[in-house]
């Protein structure tokens, strides 16, 4: 069999479902959250039944997102720690952005950018959950806590949405075939060798290829 007919499994069904549950709940929470932020963006509420409806649904979509983030943490945290190559990679982010891949140390299953996205989403997700619960029950929570949460929640959301916007660009336009990887689960050997050389070598050795 020729190599370009080989499909390397990248995300199993479990991981794909996990990713898309996170994605859908995130988009819902982000759009309704923007509507609840300011009257300027309140029109977004009409995408989902109006302000009174999203006041009820936004917190629950956040809870769902947090649960999935916890699930991702269980599944991926171990592969997300930065190794020595990743640390060098991060200092050469400009080379990555300008397609000078020859100047980059090899990446494993996830590159350092993906790992940083993971950790930033874990951190902002936790902050959003805690501050969100405080804002959810205004009459039960002490005022000082609510005043902190009312600034922390949008601050975490700005970081989180900013990161996801870059993630969406990377996954759609910037890296061809990555969308197929997360939707159908497989990549070509050429794709794996270029984007994730260390991960590719593990696959090649285990697949008993010379």
């Amino acid at each position, binding site marked *: 069999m*020729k190599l370009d007919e080989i499909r390397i499994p990248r995300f199993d069904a479990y991981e794909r479902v996990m990713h898309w549950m996170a994605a859908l709940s995130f988009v819902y929470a982000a759009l309704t959250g923007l509507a609840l932020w300011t009257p300027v963006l309140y029109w977004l509420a009409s995408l989902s039944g109006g302000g009174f409806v999203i006041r*009820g649904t936004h917190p629950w979509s956040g809870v769902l997102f947090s649960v999935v983030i916890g699930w991702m943490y269980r599944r991926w945290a171990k592969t997300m720690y930065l190794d020595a190559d990743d640390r060098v990679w991060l200092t050469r982010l400009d080379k990555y952005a*300008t397609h000078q*891949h020859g100047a980059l140390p090899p990446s494993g299953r996830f590159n350092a950018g993906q790992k940083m996205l993971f950790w930033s989403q874990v951190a902002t997700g936790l902050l959003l959950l805690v501050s969100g619960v405080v804002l959810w029950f205004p009459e039960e929570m002490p005022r000082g806590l609510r005043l902190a949460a009312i*600034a922390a929640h949008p601050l975490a959301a700005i970081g989180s*949405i*900013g990161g996801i*916007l870059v993630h969406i660009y990377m996954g759609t336009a*910037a890296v*061809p075939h990555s969308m197929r990887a997360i939707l159908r689960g497989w990549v070509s050997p050429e794709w794996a060798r270029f984007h994730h050389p260390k991960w590719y070598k593990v696959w090649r050795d285990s697949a008993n290829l010379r």
Partner: protein
Amino acid sequence: MIVAKLIDTTLCIGCKACEVACQEWNDQEYTLGTFNGSYQTMPDLAHNFWNLIRFNEVERNGAQSWVMSKYQCMHCAEAGCIAACPAPGAITQMANGTVDFVHENCIGCGYCITGCPFDVPRLSPATKKVYKCSLCSDRTAVGLEPACIKTCPTNCLTFGERDELLRSAEIRTRELKADGHAQAGIYNPAGVGGTNVIYVLNDATQPEQYGLPKDPEIPWTVRLWKGPLKALGAMVFMGSILGAFFHYVIFGPQDPEKHGHPEEEPTHEA
């Protein structure tokens, strides 16, 4: 014309007629109060109880005394509830200065509860909307004074043009000072741009004794949330979207054939 309520706490006898009038006019459901060892009707304001006479027990000159104060919406000129509210038209500030909740537009998020420096709005568990004193906007609109004012038997409460009431508050303060209340003064806090509910206190140096915050203002985290963070958010979101778009325009997608590792072996055959 800005209208206001003047509350001369030195004339309050704690009869609670204003509480009854408020409940009656606004057609509130009957709620059983709780006994907390105080003459106060209720421990706190509620979504269906907008006007509470607080019986603050304070020690003054070695003697126990009752410091009574009317606890209700202050109708601030710069209202924290409006600053915090995300739903257009849910809280309005009328031309006469009244801050009123419009319940068909209220979504019950409760941000106004956090934004209010006087801790006044209350969420109804039944309707999931927020309620507070409306300054009887349905009465003032047709030239009547608010229900609490109408019923007050001691003229502790007066309603009218704000500037006029401030002048009579000053006259009353001078009287009190002449009577030996050297600390007497007006409560009309500048931090919220002044309030349309103005108090005469016989000790204005300690408004906390009346349950009134000393220097109320719109919380700085609310200002941060609705001001600089909005600008930061717009910069981050538009920056990410435009940055991604122009990155694609300038550099295009990553291409293994064009950008591959030159030192790497080409593909293997299985």
